[in-house]
């Protein structure tokens, strides 16, 4: 990582003035059980398969060791052009492309905040990251914002929305406690990639800066690092006992998983990048995963008619025509990277394809 230093001694004067004016306060957080101050985030039209009864998830909420908002979300994110960023090509970023706008959220910043309440392509969204499960996901947030509850389920970030104080574990994207219990968030794809790849694909991207409104030692990741990988991200230890242990795969192995209304399915990411096409099934319906070499990621499509998908030059051949990996003429389903133990814990006995 080649970060540069901010130099803003001048902030001192402004800081004193702001303190005297009494401005600030990160969150007007509800404490649970309060009166909802708004409708909360928009719900998805359809439900998602959840691998456990909601009561089971609710009973397995654990204290993560920090209070509500002890890990503060970024609520007023600032961005800079790609040329101004001092990231190394191999640094992990979470990329979002939406409404003609491309944004990159560096992992080394999100590890300290986990949630960025942002607006992308004119839409209010939350870009979220859980370091312990290695999952980066995007959610519509409507007029509200999300915060970090300080609780975990299956080691996974449990968000709360600041309108209703409902609790939403990130991976299942379904409220397990509060007025919105049982409802599912509206999601969008966040691509786990590297800065070099994202910038190559989106030269006009902007990048989240360290001007988060908080002071952190951003070069210091409390869990380890990704570039090069070490620490928690690579060893076989989990901090909390998974909901369900499944030793088919080492716990931190990265899979690209998907869940629909009918079930869940995981593709081994390394195998997908190497094989380019993998096929699995959810409740009898074929699903096909295709690799995107440009961003070192993959996309998953429902393929109920089991049409042939073949790797070709510059894309994938479907019905005699070549299509880009993210634009096959099939119904794309949301998929995202995650550590195996997280997927296996939330969705017991889910099929694993490699």
């Amino acid at each position, binding site marked *: 990582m080649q970060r540069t230093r*901010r130099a803003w001694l001048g*902030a001192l004067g402004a800081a004193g003035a702001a303190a005297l004016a009494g401005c600030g306060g990160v969150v007007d957080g509800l404490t649970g059980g309060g009166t909802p101050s708004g409708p909360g985030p928009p719900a998805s039209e359809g439900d998602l398969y959840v691998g456990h009864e909601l009561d089971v998830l609710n009973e397995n909420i654990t204290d993560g060791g920090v*209070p509500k908002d002890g890990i503060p979300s970024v609520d007023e994110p600032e961005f800079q052009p790609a040329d101004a960023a001092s990231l190394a090509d191999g640094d992990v970023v979470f990329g979002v492309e939406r409404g003609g706008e491309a944004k990159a959220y560096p992992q080394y910043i999100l590890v300290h905040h986990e949630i960025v309440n942002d607006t992308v392509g004119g839409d209010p969204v939350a870009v979220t990251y859980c370091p312990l499960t290695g999952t980066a996901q995007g959610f519509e947030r409507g007029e509200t914002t999300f915060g970090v509850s300080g609780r975990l389920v299956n080691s996974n970030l449990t968000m709360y929305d600041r309108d209703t104080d409902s609790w939403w574990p990130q991976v299942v994207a379904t409220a397990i406690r509060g007025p919105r219990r049982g409802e599912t968030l509206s999601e969008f794809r966040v691509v786990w990639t590297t800065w070099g790849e994202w910038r190559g694909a989106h030269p006009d991207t902007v990048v989240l800066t360290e001007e988060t409104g908080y002071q952190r030692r951003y070069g210091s990741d409390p869990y380890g690092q990704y570039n090069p990988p070490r620490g928690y991200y690579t060893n076989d230890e989990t901090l909390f006992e998974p909901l369900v242990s499944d030793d088919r795969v080492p716990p931190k192995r990265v899979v690209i998983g998907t869940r629909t209304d009918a079930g869940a399915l995981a593709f081994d990411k390394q195998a997908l990048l190497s094989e380019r096409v993998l096929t699995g099934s959810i409740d009898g319906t074929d699903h096909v995963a295709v690799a995107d070499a440009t961003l070192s990621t993959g996309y998953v499509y429902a393929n109920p008619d089991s049409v042939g998908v073949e790797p070709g030059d510059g894309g994938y051949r479907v019905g005699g025509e070549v299509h880009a990996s993210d634009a096959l003429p099939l119904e794309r389903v949301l998929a995202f990277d995650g550590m195996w133990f997280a997927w296996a814990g939330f969705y017991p006995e889910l099929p694993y394809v490699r």
Partner: protein
Amino acid sequence: MSGEAAGGREAAGNRALGLLRQSGVAVRGALSRRDGRATAAVAGLGYLLVYLVGLGHLGVGPSGLELSVVADPLTRALQLRGPFQWEPVALAVVGPVELLVSPLNIALGTLLGLLVGLNLAVSLVAYRGPAACKLGPGAGAAAGLPGILSGFACCGPTILIVLGLQASATVLTLFQWLLPLTVLALVGTLLWVGRKVEA
């Protein structure tokens, strides 16, 4: 009966006062010597630094020279980030050294460092003195260990991985109590060592 109880309470109170007085004498005696003062200063400062490293507030990073402060330092300084951990209000960088300034944590670390330093200074003086007690000079420092461990509980108890433990409600609760236990342990050892010095 009540008269006896009152007498008992008075005697216990007198004993406690005597213990405090003895410890006060021991501390003053230790600090009147050069080796005692040096021990207290070095151990106290050393503890503070290790505590800040444990919190993740002190470490090395990209080289630079910087002082940046949040927009609302007074509010932020009181916001809890974890058990006995508060929001940093500033980042100071000198060369490769980075320091996050959380005033309450620095105050707490200084208090703990002071107690560790005094423990060691009194222990050392007692150890070298004619009425050497059986207490090694390391006892005071050992009493401070839980406080250092408590610092590592920040941002996810990664120290648990180092210790080979899996987090659970019990372990996390224990972590929350490490710091107050440290204060009690340090005060306790100081009183104990002080009594030995007078003996």
